């Protein structure tokens, strides 16, 4: 017993010492710090990794000094768990005195940080999460990713125009999935289409096989699919195994399911899949070609749309700092970001001054083989699409 209490006091002492060590070291005064909160572990890790890579690439290309200030990125892993996001955001704001918080792999994470951004009056740059409501939760939120209604409404219209009458839907059961389904349904049924089967699959560890059988039995013209970026490969594998490609049921949907990150390994079953999305690695612009080549050179694989979201996010931060001359008060930065326009690897984009959400082109693409590799080849462009989720109001 005595030994234990002796141990106890020793441990308490050790803990106290360790605690002081954890406190962040002092930084140079003329540095601007950016707190980057991303899922680097767990099921959403690929999102975090792509954004982190893209930011590293951008800083390598553009230097780490803006308007005379050195940019420091402090990366924190939240494993896509909102309580971790909140803790990380608080630590970054209070202890590290960051001027921006950025990243946010999933919607609940972005929402959890929103009140902190409001309270601390610092910009929250959302680089991944795609639910429409996010930017309404704080006047300090700016988004450089996309919203699911942006792409889903367009694929809905496209399906109607191209003779697709009956659609079965398969979406992940969480906010972005429900957003995607609702906007698709609205546009598709308004044009006279019919949803014959509606399936929501659990987000965690989904097994698509039983659902796919139901899809096959419903004999639709096409199936509308939304699964988060990392799950597309698994979905396509089971889609081919169940023979839905041979049954002539095509996949349509927002482009998450054919994310460039995984597309090349999906096999030939994916050929002919038509999706509407914001970015394709095959986007035919000089800037994109350079971006893809540089990304491939540094990280060994193709950038997906998450990488572009991160690349544009850090660009927005750089440009805002240039505009304020390196001043870091939150209101000034948000004002600077509003209405900003630039050319991104995905095409021309801008920040809507009213909603602080991204306005961008949405491309309709078809998966084709180019030089032996699978690509989303763009064949139709809808210019400067605002978030339909908010445009309605």
């Amino acid at each position: 017993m005595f030994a234990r209490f002796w141990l106890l006091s020793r441990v308490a002492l050790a803990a106290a010492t360790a605690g002081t060590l954890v406190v962040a070291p002092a930084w140079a005064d003329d540095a601007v710090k950016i707190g980057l909160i991303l899922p680097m572990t767990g099921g959403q890790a690929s999102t975090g990794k792509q954004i982190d890579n893209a930011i590293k690439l951008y800083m390598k290309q553009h230097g780490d000094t803006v308007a005379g200030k050195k940019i420091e990125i402090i990366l924190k892993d939240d494993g896509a768990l909102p309580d971790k996001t909140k803790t990380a955001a608080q630590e970054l704001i209070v202890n590290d005195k960051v001027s921006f918080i950025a990243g946010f792999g999933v919607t609940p994470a972005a929402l959890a940080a929103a009140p902190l951004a409001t309270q601390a009056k610092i910009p929250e740059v959302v680089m991944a999460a795609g639910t429409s409501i996010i930017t309404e939760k704080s006047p300090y939120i700016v988004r450089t990713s996309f919203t699911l209604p942006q792409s889903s409404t367009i694929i809905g219209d496209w399906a109607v125009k191209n003779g697709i009458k009956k659609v079965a839907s398969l979406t992940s059961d969480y906010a972005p999935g429900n957003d995607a389904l609702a906007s698709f349904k609205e546009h598709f049924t308004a044009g006279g289409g019919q949803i014959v089967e509606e399936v929501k699959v659990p987000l965690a560890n989904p097994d698509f096989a039983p659902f796919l059988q139901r899809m096959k039995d419903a004999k639709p013209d096409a199936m509308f699919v939304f699964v988060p970026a990392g799950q597309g490969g698994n979905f396509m594998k089971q889609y081919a195994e169940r023979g839905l490609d041979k049954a002539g049921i095509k996949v349509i949907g927002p482009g998450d399911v054919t994310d460039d990150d995984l597309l090349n390994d999906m096999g030939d079953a994916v050929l002919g899949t038509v999706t509407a999305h914001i970015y394709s690695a095959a986007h035919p612009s000089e800037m994109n070609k350079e971006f893809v080549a540089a990304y491939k050179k540094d990280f060994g694989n193709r950038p997906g749309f998450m990488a572009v979201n991160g690349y544009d996010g850090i660009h927005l931060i750089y440009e805002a700092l240039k505009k304020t001359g390196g001043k870091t008060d939150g209101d000034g930065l948000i004002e600077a970001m509003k209405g900003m326009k630039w050319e991104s690897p995905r095409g021309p984009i801008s920040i809507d001054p009213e909603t602080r959400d991204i306005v961008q082109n949405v491309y309709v693409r078809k998966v084709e083989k180019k030089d032996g590799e699978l690509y989303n080849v763009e064949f139709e462009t809808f210019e400067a699409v605002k978030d339909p989720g908010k445009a309605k109001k």
Partner: protein
Amino acid sequence: MNAPSDVRFHAGRHARWHAAEIVFWLAALSCAFVFPSRYLIMTDILRLALFALSLDLILGYAGIVSLGHAAFFGVGAYSAGLLALHGIINEPVIALIVAGLAAAVLGFCTSFLLIRGADLTRLMVTLGIALLLEALAERFSDITGGTDGLQGIEMQPILGLFAFDMFGKTGFFYALIVLFLLFLLARRIVHSPFGLSLRAIRNNPLRAAAIGVPVNRRLIAIYTVAAFYAGVAGALFTQTTALASLDVFAFERSADLMLVLVIGGTGYLYGGLIGAVLFRMLQEIFSTITPQYWQFWIGLVLIVVVLVGRARLHRWVLFVPNLLITRIAGGKAAVAVPESEGP
């Protein structure tokens, strides 16, 4: 000296407060003033400590192993979340107790499944219950919010006086007070004759039954109490973060809890508390150094802690010489290792 007074004498002797314990709690309180900018992470540690205390009650004192303790944590978390979200009970303290009781009811009901089996059965049953609840929470997403979690929880001030603030100061003191009160209660329980009978059961259930300890009833009682504790820990989680999502039931949460107790040690109440501090601090340090691969280093440290801490250092010192002797001479190890020494 007759038997009851003998028991009371020994229990009383162990129940006395040691100086180190007082120092420990003073240190915990002083953290609030030493690290005023780190309330959220310290609150996180307190919640984990209470949760670990709960597992220690059944594992360290009654010898019940569990890989599904998150079930009670989750029930407490969702109860507190739903109570606040729908405005059923707005007062956080009462909601906390109600959430704990909800978990206790579940603990009581499921305890009957536990008293039948041995360790392996218990591991499987507890794990199963937690998985089952997680699946249910996912299925009934209209109630639980599914993967998105409960959105829009707004906590009322504690006792109508102390509002939860953005940077977690109120939450920290609230959690600390709850932890301390429940710790006092736990301390009282384990030093009572009831607690002693639990230890008898842990050491040898058959012998305990033979001397007249009602084994099953005692196990049901302590399991229910532990479930209450875990439920309160879960409710604290929801109340201090205003979040409740499916991961409250996650297997990782139960598994992490085991690790906390492995680090801190079982059967003396402080194990969970110390383990929680060390575990979170390791996580914090490693994830700051390498946000992508911190889990590797945590795993490595845990393996070292378990091997060195558990298997007694001197055995490892003699491992190589003994191996050489057995290999070369082909006989029994010449250097004797005392087997019966315990920590």
